[in-house]
């Protein structure tokens, strides 16, 4: 897959399945991050949402990337709750709108899709960079994806760049003092811990990149 110029619906479906699997695997870790500066449910929340996504994908796999992303949006919106549900819901919904009916996603469209998702998050949650939220994973990811596209990269490279930047962005939330979400109530005491939403965002973007790169694709499909 690494040499392809576009990613298709199968990539999207595999990515989403892998997302569900990754979230399940990191559930306790995400909840533990949230316990330290929030209320300890972020892993649980996301896992509830992605389990439901998985069930729906099994029941009736959507035919287009746009439909698949919309299904995720609606499912997360109605199953996750908390802050993350509407935020991720909006992000996937904007991503779905961005790809429209397109069946083959090329590198520029992937960057546009990621940007739309990030803009959705910001529109809904009003967080600014360095507020210690998931936005701090998404914004570097979007910037890296854009730079990568400008440098003529393939989709796989674009996603790899986005994932790496998101991971770095999540790490970089550690020293920050939270200004949004529950963690903001801790004031200075929120510094020193990684933001759980940034951490889950990095996992989801890493799942996208890994799927594109074909790593462990068989396991994820099981």
């Amino acid at each position, binding site marked *: 897959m690494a040499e392809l110029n576009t990613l298709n619906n199968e990539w999207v479906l595999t990515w989403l399945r892998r997302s569900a699997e990754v979230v399940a695997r990191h559930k306790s870790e995400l*909840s533990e991050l949230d*316990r330290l500066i*929030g*209320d*300890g*449910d972020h892993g*649980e*929340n996301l896992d*509830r949402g992605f389990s439901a996504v998985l069930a729906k994908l099994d029941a009736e796999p959507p035919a287009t990337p746009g439909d698949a992303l919309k299904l995720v949006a609606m499912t997360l*919106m*109605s*199953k*996750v*709750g*908390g*802050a*993350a*549900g*509407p*935020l991720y*819901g909006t992000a996937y919904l904007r991503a779905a709108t961005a790809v429209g009916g397109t069946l083959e996603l090329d590198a520029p469209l992937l960057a546009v899709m990621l940007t739309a998702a990030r803009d959705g998050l910001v529109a*809904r*949650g009003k967080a600014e960079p360095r507020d210690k939220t998931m936005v701090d994973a998404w914004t570097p990811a979007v910037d890296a994806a854009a730079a990568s596209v400008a440098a003529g990269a393939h989709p796989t490279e674009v996603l790899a760049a986005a994932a790496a930047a998101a991971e770095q962005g999540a790490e970089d939330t550690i020293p920050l*003092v*939270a*200004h*949004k*979400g*529950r963690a*903001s*109530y*801790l*004031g200075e*005491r929120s510094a020193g811990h990684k933001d759980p939403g940034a951490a889950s965002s990095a996992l989801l973007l890493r799942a996208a990149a890994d799927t594109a790169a074909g790593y462990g694709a068989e396991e994820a499909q099981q």
Partner: protein
Amino acid sequence: MKKLINDPQEVVDESVAGFGLAHADLVSINSDPLFVTRKERPAKPKVGLVSGGGSGHEPLHAGFVGLGMLDAAVPGPVFTSPTPDAIIPATQAADSGAGVVHIVKNYTGDVLNFETAAEMAAAEGIEIRTVLVNDDVAVEDSLYTAGRRGVAGTVLVEKIAGAAAERGDDLDAVAAVGQRVNDNVRTMGVALSACTVPHAGVPSFELADDEIEIGIGIHGEPGRHKIAMEPADGITDRLLEPILAELKLAAGDKVLLFVNGMGGTPLSELYIVYRHAVQVVEATGATVERNLVGNYITALEMQGCSISVLKLDAEMIELWDAPVNTPALRWGV
């Protein structure tokens, strides 16, 4: 973690089912999606009141469904706000043609989910107003935070706005009096112990044997700072200080004083706090005209309490005294 539960995933469903059985004369349960409504729909159109939020704060909110208070409550998973797919049908059930007021505690999750639901319910033709409760003075600097949290003041907003709806006030008037209550109530809480979310299985924060956490919220999140354990009177002074600094009470002012238990503290201790709180509040020259002491908005089995002071006007007193018939608050009927 030892709890009287079965499967941690079923805690909310089973608890609400038991609640529904115990109060079948007052409420009906819709189980999927989960929400609670009054047993009887109003004879003539009245403004509907809907609230909701994460579970774990019982009796809030379902315990306040009934005559003179809420029309519907939407319990989310423990400490996690409910989703629009439950809030929307609850809103529809609460609508008898006069519109619906959403009473929302100011937490990002609650705000975003209720906002989404309100947009969608409005799109279906229901007029919605939202009262955002943010009474928690522990959150000092709302410029750099998600803003003050909605805590115990929510109960007072629900009671007083509920009475206004019951007597036939219109949508804007009900929302306005709810907003007025919110604007005049301030709350501050303390935890002596943390609580354990069932599916997490570990306490939400750590406290040494001689520490307490000041300025906690109601979700087991740590507070603003830890201090060494103190006698109840000292703790009461500390909780009241920021409240009174904001309310600026003067001679002749009338207040409602609310000492709320976090779930794991005995009633007897709440009365010890109440006793001293009355002295401190009345030292400003104000008088405590009404009160509420007990476990009304809790954080699972957390030990601790919050103190709320609501500056009353004549209309609020009248609405507070109006009949209420809910599982958790009842008088006049």
